[in-house]
């Protein structure tokens, strides 16, 4: 059975941890056995904690020469049999993009934590932003899929890191935790459970490592040293791994299969959370730290008689189109506060049409406060 109950490395019970520390513990609990990374604010605490903790738990920690090397090493380690992780922030995500495409195309399970800061470029290294939503999905060339999750608390830095590992291993793809500085550096009570559900790789000796008889099926995941004579390549390949760089049908089939593998599971992958949606005529669509401010704003608005609700996106990729469409099914309008210039608002517009979506963008390196969101809700209120 691939699903498996594992004991977290940290004692069960309440701990006071920063989001970054909680993510490192989540990785250990998920069975991460390898970390490679390069220091960058505001993610470095993940790396520093794992530098101390991974070797205590039989894992391997490497500081690499840059972020390209980091994700490269993670992919190599994944094929050597480890659950593998790297963590970074925007500039590092930019450097990792070619490897991210490689991981998607070679179906390599791995997890990338991006603790977002205010970009573009070096931007404000210590300040918060959420401008990497599109980069996480579209940053590498070609058509591919990733799974990306958005934690709103230190607790979810733990929980969703575990979940990211499980999706990565189960679907054989790169899973991304799209965290933000405000959550990575937030210290909160984190309740470490007695056990967490973890996913162990499925391996059938001799089965093709890059193909499955069923559409959307996930191939067997072998590792080096099993005598499988693996052929792993980032060039177009067939189900055994032979390069098929001249064959139009092979390329189309592979690209479609890799995308279908994820999109066919959108229902299960797309996780959202509704607050006060039943009678809401104004719905705040938010994710990550901003959703915490939005929840407070929604409660304050309700005290003033405004029927506001919150739809929180836990999964950002694949984008939870259905939940967004449903939230508006009762004729509500959407307010989308985000620490970028409308990256998710744009996606919402594609789902529900432009007229019903009001972006509320803030890109000044500060998080969006409840007062700002409340102000916008009151303005929109009938």
């Amino acid at each position, binding site marked *: 059975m691939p699903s498996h109950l594992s004991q977290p490395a940290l004692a069960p019970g309440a701990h006071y941890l920063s989001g970054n520390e909680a993510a490192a513990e989540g990785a250990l609990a998920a069975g991460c056995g390898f970390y490679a990374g390069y220091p960058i604010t505001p993610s470095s605490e993940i790396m520093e904690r794992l530098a101390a903790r991974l070797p205590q738990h039989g894992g391997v920690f490497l500081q690499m020469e840059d972020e390209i090397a980091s994700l490269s090493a993670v992919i190599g380690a994944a094929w050597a049999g480890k659950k593998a992780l790297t963590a970074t922030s925007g500039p590092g995500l930019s450097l990792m993009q070619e490897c991210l495409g490689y991981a998607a195309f070679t179906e390599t399970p791995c997890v990338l934590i991006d603790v977002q800061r205010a970009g573009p470029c070096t931007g404000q290294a210590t300040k918060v932003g959420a401008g990497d939503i599109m980069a996480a999905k579209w940053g590498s060339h070609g058509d591919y899929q990733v799974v990306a999750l958005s934690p709103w608390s230190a607790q979810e830095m733990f929980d969703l890191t575990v979940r990211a590992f499980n999706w990565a291993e189960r679907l054989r793809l790169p899973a991304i935790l799209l965290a933000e500085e405000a959550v990575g550096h937030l210290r909160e009570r984190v309740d470490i459970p007695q056990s967490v559900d973890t996913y162990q790789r499925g391996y059938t000796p001799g089965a093709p490592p890059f193909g499955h008889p069923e559409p959307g099926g996930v191939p067997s995941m072998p590792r080096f*040293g099993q005598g499988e004579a693996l052929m792993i390549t980032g060039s177009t390949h067939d189900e055994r791994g032979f390069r098929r760089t001249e064959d139009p049908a092979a390329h189309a089939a592979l690209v479609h299969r890799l995308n279908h593998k994820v999109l066919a599971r959108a229902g299960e992958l797309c996780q959202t959370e509704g607050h006060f949606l039943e009678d809401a005529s104004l719905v705040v669509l938010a994710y990550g730290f901003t959703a915490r401010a939005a929840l407070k704003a929604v409660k304050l608005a309700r005290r003033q008689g405004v029927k506001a609700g919150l739809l929180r996106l836990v999964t950002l990729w694949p984008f939870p189109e259905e939940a967004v469409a449903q939230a508006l099914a009762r004729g509500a309008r959407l307010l989308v506060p985000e620490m970028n210039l409308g990256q998710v608002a744009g996606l919402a517009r594609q789902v529900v049409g432009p007229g019903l979506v009001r972006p509320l963008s803030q890109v000044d390196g500060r998080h969006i406060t409840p007062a700002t969101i409340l102000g916008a809700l009151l303005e929109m209120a009938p």
Partner: protein
Amino acid sequence: MTRALDQYLRTEVKATPFCPGCGHGVLLGLILRAIEGAGLDPRQMLFVSGIGCAAWIPSPNFRADTLHTLHGRALAFATGAKAANPGLKVMVVSGDGDLSSIGGNHLIHAARRGLEMTVVCANNQIYGMTGGQAAPTTPLGAATATTPAGNPFRPFDLCRLVRAAGAAYVARGAVTRPYELMDYIAQGLQRPGFSFIEALSPCPTQAGRRQGLDSPAALYDDLSRRCLARRELAGDAELPPGAWELGSWCGDDN
């Protein structure tokens, strides 16, 4: 002799992609023989390569675990695999452009870190796969697709570079001296730590053609004449211009 290597090759692959006269095909056989000579079984090894003609030497030809990675990144992928499973016997085979230009930073850091792996750099002094552009190993003055008036810059001496970065074992051989080259590769494989073997391997199609050496025979002849082992030089004599010093260096000679 030719059939003897079949057990290590994926016989489903009918032909290598190498051009007539390309040294990489010769090198392919030499690597397998060297591994066997070192008492190892290539089928139990992991071969990591980057992107380029040279990266196709192991992938998919070797009946072994082969990891064909991204341009320049072979050493970083190999580092992850080796660190994750130190029991793996890892060899990296890639081109001069791959390992020393786009992957140059990984090369010096892998040598510094010293994780055990053997790197064979197939040096044809050119970007072969993409059509004969200048590499960091292209000789000063050589005509290439991107240096039509002659390369204005000096090439790397890869062996000196990797020695300075801390490799345990470094050697330079040439496909025109197959027995020496096989011996260097076997030595590297038996050495703990990071070993690096530069294998000079001529490219008739992309380099020779532009440099007035238009037949493979002329190119091999030229390379043979340029290669000199230290013992073939009188005393401490300087290397004549354009010549390659063949030989091996251990970490402690640094």
